[in-house]
Structures are given as structure tokens and as C-alpha cells.
């Protein structure tokens, strides 16, 4: 039986750990609510933009001419990894890194062998991973996670789009955690450039719109916007997922600590009782000896 003092110290240390994890859970829950709000805030803009765009491109045949829709053989690939800046969020980051690894082993095997896969990292964990495995990282944007305003994200999107247009890259993909709900994240990779032309059935132009200046001009204006929104959405999703993952992880840690505490308390009570029994035994046998 471990001695009483030892158990007491362990109990108090587990208790304070549990306090920390439950506080972290609370913080994550609050942040999750905030980041969920910003996803909801962005949604009307994204849906409306998509609506106008699909309305328009339906009536245009020149989709392939767009510089962002150019299909080229994918020689040079750019992957954008979105992770978190902080740890303690369960499998959140390692899922992204695993997904990246499997992309490199599978889909972009040939390009990777030739060293034609580059990376942009958003989040410290991605930066650490790329440095550790000595991959070709062209830039990192950790600050976007702290202050994810649309303008900052748009700047990044602009620079990526420029690189695509001047053929530095033939294909750009985003690897991120899609937000499902607080307990579920879906690690996914999404093609960013070239644009995948989605033809939506049943969307009809029921109004005789006036287009100013012209349909083509409007489409060309809107496509970069929708690309920016796509990255922005990925980042917001990832932030919400991070808080969700952290909340779940911390919840589990708190539960585990409670469980551990229960066991320790039991051990402690047993040890204390054993010590008392021992003492009584000693006294009784001492008295017994005096008698005889």
C-alpha cells in the first residue's frame, strides 16, 4: 500500500490538473460559439455570390477561357495546410498532417518525387511539421488564425491566384478540417485552383436582368471574389473545428481526471483505514503483553 502522504500529493495534483482542463474546455466552448457565429455571418454572402455566379455562368459558354479555370497537366502543385497555432486539441492537427502525407504518397506521388510540391502553411503546427520533414514551404500565415478578417485572407488569396495565373503552380489544393458540429470535424482536401465548374441543374434565370457593364465582365469580377470567399470559409471552418476539437479533448481529459481522482480517493481511504487498524492492533497487543 502506497503511503498516505504520497497519495495525498497525487490527489491534489490531479485535482488542479482537472481544474485546468475544465477551464480550458470552458474557454474553448466560448470561442467555439464566437467562431460559429462568424461562419453563420459569412454564409449569406457566400450563398448569394454563388447564386449570382451560377446564374451567370449558365448563360456563358466561355467558362473555359477564364484564366482561373485553365486545366493544365498538374506538374507543379501547391498545398495549403490549415492547422492551429496551439496544441491540446486531440487529433485535429495530426489528421491534417496525415491527410497531407497520404496525398503525397498517393495522388501527388510523381510530383512529390520530382520536388514539385510546395506548401503554404497557416498555423504553427503546420510550420513545425513542414520544417521537421524539410518540405518546400514558400510562406506561412499564422496570424490569419488570430485575426481572420476578410481583407487579410483576400490578400493571401490574391497572391495565390497571381501565382496560378503566371503558371508558377498548375494546381492548388487546400487541406483543412471542415466544421460539421462541435464534436465532429471532417478532414478534407478541396481543390482551389483551377476552378471546378459546377453545373447546377434546375437553376434558371427567371428575370430579364440588365447586366452592367457586361456578363463577361461581371463573371470575371466575381470569380476572384468567390475564390477569396472559399479560402475565407476554409479558415473560418478550421478555426471553429479547432475549438470544437479542443473542447471535446478537454472534456475527455476532465472526465479522465475525475475517474482517476475517484480511484485515488478510494486508495487513500483504504490506506488510511489500514493504518488505523494497524495502530489499534499494536495498542491491543501492547496491552495484552502488559497483562501477561
Amino acid at each position, binding site marked *: 500500500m502506497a503511503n498516505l502522504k504520497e497519495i495525498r500529493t497525487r490527489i491534489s495534483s490531479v485535482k488542479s490538473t482537472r481544474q485546468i482542463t475544465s477551464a480550458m474546455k470552458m474557454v474553448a466552448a466560448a470561442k467555439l460559439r464566437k467562431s460559429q457565429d*462568424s461562419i453563420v*455571418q*459569412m454564409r*449569406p*454572402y*457566400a450563398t*448569394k*455570390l454563388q447564386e*449570382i455566379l451560377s446564374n*451567370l455562368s449558365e448563360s456563358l459558354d466561355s467558362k473555359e477561357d477564364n484564366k482561373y479555370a485553365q486545366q493544365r497537366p498538374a506538374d507543379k502543385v501547391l498545398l495549403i495546410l490549415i492547422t492551429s497555432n496551439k496544441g491540446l486539441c486531440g487529433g485535429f492537427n495530426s489528421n491534417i498532417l496525415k491527410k497531407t502525407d497520404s496525398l503525397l504518397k498517393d495522388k501527388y506521388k510523381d510530383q512529390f518525387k520530382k520536388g514539385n510540391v510546395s506548401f503554404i502553411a497557416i498555423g504553427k503546427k503546420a510550420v513545425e511539421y513542414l520544417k521537421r520533414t524539410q518540405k518546400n514551404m514558400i510562406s506561412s500565415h499564422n496570424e490569419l488564425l488570430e485575426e481572420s*478578417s*476578410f*481583407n487579410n485572407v*483576400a490578400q493571401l488569396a490574391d497572391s495565390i491566384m497571381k501565382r496560378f495565373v503566371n503558371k508558377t503552380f498548375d494546381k492548388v489544393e487546400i487541406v483543412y478540417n471542415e466544421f460539421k458540429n462541435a464534436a465532429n470535424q471532417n478532414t478534407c482536401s478541396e481543390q482551389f485552383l483551377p476552378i471546378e465548374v459546377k453545373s447546377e441543374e434546375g437553376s434558371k434565370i427567371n*428575370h*430579364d*436582368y*440588365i*447586366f*452592367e*457593364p457586361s456578363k463577361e*465582365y*461581371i463573371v470575371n*469580377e*466575381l470569380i476572384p*471574389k468567390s475564390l*477569396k*470567399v472559399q479560402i*475565407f470559409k476554409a479558415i473560418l471552418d478550421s478555426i471553429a473545428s479547432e475549438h470544437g476539437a479542443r473542447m471535446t479533448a478537454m472534456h475527455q481529459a476532465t472526465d479522465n481526471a475525475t475517474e482517476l481522482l475517484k480511484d485515488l480517493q478510494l486508495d487513500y481511504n483504504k490506506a488510511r483505514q489500514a493504518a488505523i487498524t494497524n495502530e489499534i492492533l499494536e495498542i491491543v497487543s501492547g496491552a495484552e503483553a502488559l497483562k501477561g
Partner: protein
Amino acid sequence: MYLEIITPEKKVFEGEVRIIQLPGSLGSFEIMNNHAPIISTLMEGTIKIVDNSNAETFFEISGGVVESTDNKIIVLVEAG
């Protein structure tokens, strides 16, 4: 007519208005009641809203797009 102004970050305006003046790519223009359906891109400039009580509201934008149908106007903007 009903107007919504939306940025990627939030909805900045929502409500009944009388006149809206927009900085279109081909120059400034106004939308009043029963305007024909229109989609237009917007340039950097100021959106002016006149509501039913003739109060004016202004928004600075750096670009965007407007869609108007059946007296329902939706303006997607990037705030300036």
C-alpha cells in the same frame, strides 16, 4: 423596397429604403422603386441610402456587386 447590404463578415444593413445610390463600374447610378432587374459590379466609392423618412445613410465600399429584382436589392460589398 427592401435592401440588404452584406459583407463577408456580417450583414451591415437590412431594411426598407426609398432610394439607393451605388458606385457602379460604369458610373454612379440610383435604384428606385420598381427598377428593372439588374446585376452590376461596383467600384470603390460610397453607397447612399435614403429611407422612407428621408434620412440618409452612407457606406464606404471598396468594391462589390449588386443584384436587384422585384424591389428586393442585395448588395455584396467589400468594406473599404
